[in-house]
């Protein structure tokens, strides 16, 4: 899933301070799972903002709504009927949702309420860690199912670097070295000899480097 983190409230206050009628718009997908932008977080943020502005002696009309998704027209269109009641929108969806909602409502200012961080997994409640950078050319088959693009601080294809120490990455003793994980996993699969196969120069054109990407599937287009 896409993992996001809440923005500090001061930053959101700064974004919306000149608006009067504000809709806080959550999303029921990834940001709900990572507890950054679901219904619960919409409620908390809305109350905190109301309180903040009340304390400033400025009552604002702050409302709450959470859509099923903000990355699908079908759901984004659900606020069509009420959109003109607001002069600003704070979206707690990921960066995709924020932009997609904005595209649907060209006249409505929209502000991000979260920092979109990475594609990751829930290790346990309150701990999410990165697993993928959507490089567009997945090489997990060659690396024992562990991704060096997202999990090695130098995205080394033929690792580890000289900084791997006691299973940890040179940049942080709390961070596992991706290449230690890869070697351990190849070992437990009985495939350690594969380690010696040189990984060829990677084609980064399917990555961010190649410019904005799209997936187009004519077979499923109606």
């Amino acid at each position, binding site marked *: 899933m896409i993992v996001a983190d809440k923005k500090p409230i001061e930053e959101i206050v700064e974004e919306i301070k000149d608006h009067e009628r504000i809709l806080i718009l959550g999303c029921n997908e990834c940001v709900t799972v990572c507890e950054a932008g679901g219904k619960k977080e919409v409620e908390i943020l809305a109350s905190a903002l109301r309180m903040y502005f009340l304390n400033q002696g400025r009552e604002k009309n702050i409302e709450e709504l959470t859509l099923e998704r903000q990355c699908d027209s079908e759901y984004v269109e659900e606020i069509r009927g009420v959109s003109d009641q607001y002069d600003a929108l704070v979206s707690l969806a990921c960066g995709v949702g924020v932009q997609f909602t904005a595209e649907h409502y060209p006249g409505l200012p929209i502000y991000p309420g979260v920092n979109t961080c990475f594609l990751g997994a829930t290790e346990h409640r309150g701990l999410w860690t990165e697993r993928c950078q959507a490089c567009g050319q997945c090489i997990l088959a060659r690396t024992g199912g562990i991704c060096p693009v997202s999990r090695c601080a130098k995205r080394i*294809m*033929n690792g580890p*670097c000289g*900084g*791997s120490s006691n299973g940890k990455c*040179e940049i942080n003793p709390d961070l596992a070295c991706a290449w230690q994980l890869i070697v351990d996993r190849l070992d437990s699969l009985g495939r*350690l000899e594969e380690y010696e196969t040189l990984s060829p120069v990677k084609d980064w054109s399917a990555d961010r480097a190649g410019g904005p990407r799209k997936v187009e599937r004519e077979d499923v287009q109606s």
Partner: protein
Amino acid sequence: MNLKTPSKLEQVFAAGHIAVTSECGPPRGSDPEAVTKKAEMIKDHVDAINITDNQTAMTRLCSLASCIHIKQMGLEPILQMVTRDRNRIAMQSDLLGAASFDIHNLLCLSGDHQSFGDCAQGQNVHDLDSMQLIQTARQMRDEGKFLGGDDIKRPPRMFVGAAANPFADPYEIRVPRLAKKVAAGAEYIQTQCIFNLEKFEQWMHDVRERGLHEKTCIMAGITPFKSAGMAKFMAKRVPGMDIPDALVKRMSDTPKDKQQAEGIKIAIESIQRLKECQGVKGFHIMAIEWEEKVPEICEAAGMHPRPENAG
């Protein structure tokens, strides 16, 4: 002798001599004397001089320009290149730039992470990794072709090397990792500083079992301790460094005013012992900000004069 490049380092290896290299770190400013002075101190005692590339991710005078300064002194530079700061266009381009000044040695590294340096908020590139840089340099030289496949007019003629850490984790791949660098095309290897001689000898034993010592020229990395404090710091703080407690104790038990001499003595003893280790073809002396001691170490370890000076 069947030489692939005009590199002096390659010649020394090919003639069967023990090779000696050392290094100069460029300054955090643009004064070329900061490099040329260090080079002057060591020039008669080494076969080639590594120029580090923004080491510890601190912005410095660039390795290529420093190599040119040294080349213009009539010395033999080794261009260090990290994959952190350049993409494949810039790396190939810099290799051509170096070749245009007849710089004939390259050392490929991934480089310390930028979070250690003065630009912790910067991007890193890592378009290629160090093994792929080795392959790229070899392809440019041996096939005369760019990565993209086009022909190079006057291809670079560089002797291509890499670093290796015989003590690094994960343990299982200490030797396979070297094998991979050799397969990528590393013609010489400079190792991490060696303090744990037994462990290094064990590694060399495993290296010989796979015949890797015959496919690449392994240079043992030597760093003299300047003080007991430095020994302790390196033992505790520098990742991938293996310093036996006995050695730290030996430094600590030495009175302060004699510690420098003791550090030099340890370095000399290490060289003398490792000269006997089959497969060690040279020494890389990393006397960080202590270059003036390199001649003394080389002389005492019986590595002076250098072959070309001896005629």
